[in-house]
């Protein structure tokens, strides 16, 4: 068959059942991405004779003799297509994994489609931006700007990868061709709890192309945790690479290594596993009851607080005297709130490619938020010295916490070490849902007491968190859940009880907000309910009770802390949102729609309480440019741009003269990872300190070189002005080289001391009292971002966080059946927001200068999600008079109570029918 791709002709024969997506990638067109492989996300969009199609659901043979255009073929004569320029300059992306498909779709819209983007773009999912930036890109708005040398901080500098992202050149994990690559596929447990009696592998090994079948007998009998932290002791070592007990539906049971994905799949189908099904428990409260099936028994028990009751960790604290506090109260509000599992749904699935290089070193190319810690784990599992192992990431297609885990690297490394061959494992979208780590479901009871004047007298909190079958992140998220959502309020009497509980469901993990999103929902709804009971305005009640500079931040205990704040950022956030909502006046969309407003606030530490370290190396290159080597991974959070801006300003140069080398354990120092907003706060501080040190070093060398006083030397873009002379940096680098000197500095930074970031969210919503549909009429978030390094990136992160948060409330429903099997493990039925579902959010940055982050900045990519769910639920309650305490608020879950309990529309709310 003859294929014409981007003007080139290929003579090739796809497999009969092959889709166009994989065929084009085999031909080297890696810009054609896999987000879902089922036609739902649009990341693989290409043109067939000029018409856009999803190449993953297009049979490859159908393209025979037709003209195929991929993102790589869109630029003509080396000039970007106007839509590529638009997406670069807006910028219309964050992680960039959806961008090729977005551009290929947007570039062929006609006028009527451009006028109806919600419909025209509903076949293209973006998990990062919240779609406003994409709308702006399609409309040709430009928010990026050039910054003069030395003045980049505070400017919306474009991400350095922008050109690569919009042309499809940006390399993600799987975007490489490896000679002789073998492929892994996993056999997963159909049982929630079972002992593996036998695994018959002969038939699988007889499948042509199958090389190995790995079972629990073939892996190092070493326990570890898939969760990533510098201090591995904070997460329990309760996991084997492959185990002889299955503890949830979807747990990997065997791995088949073969010459092709097809052979590996056929091999998996031929593996016969004999299970002895065991009793299972799915609800954490039941799991804590006497006689419940025990999830972990034996060796791993020593990591578990109470293995018989399945309690991984329990935390208790009592400050003051809550009983006395409640006795003092005029009004008491008590209720229980439930927050379910939700999925990250980053568009790039997990995956790794491993090989041995010429020196026998194990190379691991992976989609991770922390190559450094992945390396530590692999070294532990396979008894490797640090110099025998390299872990690195190229650009990562979204993370949101989902890649703060080791899910693919271990089994790939095992296969490569066993066979000496390069090995790949790429998760399907279904595996993302059934085999990774969604947010911890939590059931939180809040009891608040207050005086009639609104002053809190007692605050009681009980959280039962479901860590699932394994303990990864279960302890740390429990700890986080009992922190800032409670500490944000002053109250002399606080009592807290928390339990992280094992069940036979898929393990929970890290997700944007990390254990703080769930209590923010419970507490901020409870505050709203208390305000209503008191007859007070919720924002006014908050103003009366929030922590002020000088107050201790108290939750579980009152003790020494490395967290402090001195600014009034929270007051400013509250005021800004309050004002914006009072001015909002969108009418209801029609009859039977009820309108109301709701708010919530949150507080977030700027780094995690666990050890967080980052090391930066800054080097003056021979050509007079700079290289910054830093471990932080780029997956759309924008730290690369921020690091560039910070370094460029310290070195008084243009951002174009600084190059970032990142996320590679062979090319940069240790970095705990890109999570907990530490990419800016910790790694940014390392970049700042190293750049500052290099500045001093260069000036001192220049002074010596020119024989002038160092006080008269200043950096000036590509040179140093030394008194009257201007000496080029390239000349200084050469002079240093001849003396055997490398002008380079390294500095480490730590996640301590820490500051806090505040934010407030407001919604005006309309609720249809018959169908249960909720529409956001107005969305505003105020954020205390400290000194803003890159305004457009801050705005983009908040917008994206709000829309992801709204997805978790309004559209996404993670449904498990009675055995813990997911009912909707695909993006068609687990509905992340599309363009049509995403309202625009006004983002207000309030001024604050109290951060100990780089230049006074604060990471805000994570905390923005915390107040979204409670503000929305509070708005629904305001609109309808009906309080929903159990997420999500999908129409099918809320309509019944609306029909029976909702207030009627007030005459003023009815649309003007005249």
């Amino acid at each position, binding site marked *: 068959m003859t294929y014409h791709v981007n003007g080139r002709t290929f003579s090739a024969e796809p497999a009969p059942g*092959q*889709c166009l997506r*994989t065929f084009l990638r085999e031909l080297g067109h890696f810009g054609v991405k896999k987000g879902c492989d089922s036609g739902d996300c649009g990341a693989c969009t290409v043109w067939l004779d000029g018409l856009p*199609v*999803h190449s993953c659901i297009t049979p490859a043979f159908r393209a025979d003799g037709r003209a195929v255009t991929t993102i790589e073929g869109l630029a003509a004569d080396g000039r970007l297509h106007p839509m590529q320029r638009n997406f670069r300059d807006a910028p219309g992306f964050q992680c960039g994994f959806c961008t090729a498909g977005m551009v290929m779709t947007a570039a062929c819209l006609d006028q009527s489609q451009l006028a109806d983007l919600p419909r025209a773009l509903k076949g293209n999912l973006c998990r990062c931006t919240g779609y406003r930036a994409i709308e702006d890109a399609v409309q040709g708005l430009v928010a990026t700007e050039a910054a003069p040398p030395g003045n980049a901080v505070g400017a919306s500098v474009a991400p350095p990868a922008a050109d690569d992202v919009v042309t499809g050149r940006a390399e993600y994990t799987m975007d490489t061709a490896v000679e002789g690559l073998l492929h892994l596929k996993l056999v997963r447990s159909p049982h929630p709890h079972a002992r593996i009696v036998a695994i018959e592998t002969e038939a699988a090994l007889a499948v042509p192309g199958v090389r190995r079948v790995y079972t629990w007998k073939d892996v190092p009998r070493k326990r570890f945790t898939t969760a990533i932290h510098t201090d591995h002791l904070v997460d329990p070592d309760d996991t084997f690479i492959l185990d002889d007990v299955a503890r949830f539906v979807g747990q990997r049971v065997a791995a088949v290594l073969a010459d092709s994905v097809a052979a590996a799949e056929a091999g998996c189908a031929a593996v016969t596993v004999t299970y002895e099904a065991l009793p299972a428990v799915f609800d954490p409260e039941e799991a804590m009851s006497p006689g419940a099936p025990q999830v972990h028994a034996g060796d791993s028990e020593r990591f578990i607080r109470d293995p018989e009751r399945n309690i991984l960790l329990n935390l208790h604290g009592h400050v003051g005297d809550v009983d006395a506090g409640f006795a003092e109260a005029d009004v008491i509000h008590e209720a229980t709130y439930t927050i379910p599992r939700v999925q990250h749904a980053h568009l790039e699935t997990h995956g790794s490619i491993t090989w041995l290089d010429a020196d026998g070193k194990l190379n691991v190319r992976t989609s991770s938020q922390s190559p450094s810690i992945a390396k530590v784990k692999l070294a532990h599992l396979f008894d490797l010295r640090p110099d025998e192992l390299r872990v690195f990431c190229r650009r990562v297609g979204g993370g949101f916490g989902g890649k703060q885990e080791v899910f693919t690297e271990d089994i790939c490394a095992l296969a490569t070490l066993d066979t000496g061959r390069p090995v790949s494992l790429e998760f399907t979208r279904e595996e993302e849902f059934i085999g990774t780590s969604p947010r911890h479901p939590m059931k939180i009871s809040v009891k608040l007491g207050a005086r009639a004047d609104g002053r809190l007298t007692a605050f009681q909190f009980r959280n039962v968190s479901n860590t699932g079958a394994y303990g990864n992140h279960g302890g740390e998220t429990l700890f986080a859940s009992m922190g800032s959502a409670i500490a944000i309020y002053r109250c002399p009497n606080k009592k807290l009880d928390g339990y992280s509980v094992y069940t036979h469901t898929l393990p929970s993990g890290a997700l944007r907000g990390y254990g703080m999103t769930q209590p923010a929902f419970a507490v901020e709804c409870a505050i709203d309910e208390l305000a209503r009971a008191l007859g007070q305005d919720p924002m006014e009640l908050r103003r009366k009770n929030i922590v002020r500079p000088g107050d201790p931040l108290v939750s579980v205990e009152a003790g020494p802390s490395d967290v402090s704040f001195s600014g009034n950022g929270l007051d400013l956030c509250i005021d800004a949102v309050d004002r914006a909502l009072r001015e909002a006046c969108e009418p209801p969309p029609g009859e039977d729609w009820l309108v109301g407003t709701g708010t919530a606030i949150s507080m977030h530490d700027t780094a995690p309480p666990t050890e967080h370290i980052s090391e930066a190396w800054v080097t003056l290159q021979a050509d007079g440019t700079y290289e910054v080597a830093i471990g932080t991974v780029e997956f759309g959070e924008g730290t690369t741009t921020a690091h560039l801006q910070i370094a460029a300003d310290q070195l008084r140069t243009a951002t174009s003269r600084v190059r970032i080398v990142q996320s590679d354990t062979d090319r940069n120092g240790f970095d705990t990872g890109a999570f907990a907003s530490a990419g800016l706060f910790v790694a940014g501080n390392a970049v700042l300190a190293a750049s500052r040190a290099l500045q001093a070093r260069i000036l001192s060398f220049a002074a010596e070189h020119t024989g002038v006083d160092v006080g008269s030397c200043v950096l000036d873009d590509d040179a140093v002005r030394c008194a009257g002379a201007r000496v080029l940096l390239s000349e200084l680098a050469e002079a240093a080289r001849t003396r055997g000197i490398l002008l380079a500095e390294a500095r480490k930074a730590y996640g301590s001391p820490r500051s806090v970031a505040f934010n407030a969210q407001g919604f005006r919503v309309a609720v249809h009292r018959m169908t249960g549909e909720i529409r956001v009429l107005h969305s505003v978030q105020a954020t205390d971002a400290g000194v803003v390094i890159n305004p457009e990136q801050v705005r983009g992160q908040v917008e994206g966080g709000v829309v992801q948060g709204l997805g978790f409330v309004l559209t996404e429903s993670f449904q498990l059946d009675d055995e813990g099997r997911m009912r909707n493990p695909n993006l068609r039925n687990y509905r992340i927001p599309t363009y049509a579902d995403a309202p625009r959010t006004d983002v207000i940055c309030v001024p604050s200068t109290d951060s100990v982050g780089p230049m006074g900045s604060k990471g805000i990519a994570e905390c923005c999600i915390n107040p979204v769910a409670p503000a929305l639920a509070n708005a629904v309650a305001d609109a309808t008079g009906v309080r929903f305490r159990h997420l999500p608020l999908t129409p099918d879950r809320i309509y019944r109570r609306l029909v029976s309990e909702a207030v009627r529309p007030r005459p003023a709310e009815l649309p003007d029918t005249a």
Partner: protein
Amino acid sequence: MDLHTITEVIPRGDAPGQRWRAGDAWLAGGTWLFSTPQPDLRRLVDLTTLGWESLVVGDAGVEIGATCTIRELHGFTPPAEWTAGPLLAVSCEAFLASFKVWNAATVGGNICMSLPAGPMISMSVALEATYTLWAPDGSERVVDAADFVTGDQENILGAGEVLRRLDVPAAALQKRYAVRRMSLTRLGRSTAFLIGTRCPRTGELVLTVTAATTRPVRLRFATPPDAMDLRRRLHEAIPDDLYFDDPNGTPEHRRHLTAYFAEQIRVELTSDGGVAA
């Protein structure tokens, strides 16, 4: 996604169902077939090489070839006298799939997939279409669209039998119509999709319930019902277990929406006296 178990794609002539065997599947646009694992399939029988005409307009109505793409149907401009003609495009817009999928997905593929939310089913049942089916031996049968889908992803097609075309009668296309649709997200898959038509000559009201139920339900009212009649007929025609349970809606919500939308359609189609001159 790649369907690794497929060993062969077979182009077929006038009796495409001949030599049909287990593991065979019809391939039209492929947009559903390639969207989900198909471990039991071995061969794909390609229908798009047969050259069936997509849209043929005549005095009797419109004949829609099974391989007519959604794009072609959406772009079709019906004769002005077909007052219900816009229903063709409105039904296309009820797809969860975006316009890009419409470039390949076919009308027949959607019908034969027989998902409760298949909007081509909604359209053809509401417009009182018939389907022409070809058996493997080349013989033909014609069935009422309302009788074709029997449940969630279930229909009356025998092994090797194929949907050849839809005939949408002009009489139905000359009715008034009203539509109500709900999905759990703004432009998502239908939770309930109801279409009402009203005959300008006889005043007959026809109500079609889809997406809410596992198979389409079509109710005929020779004279327009009142609210009570409508409610009673819905209750009689749709037992509780006919309401569909999937991640896009609960049976209870769907029953509620069906009653709510049906009443709105009744009011809309009877508000002006119903029978036009």
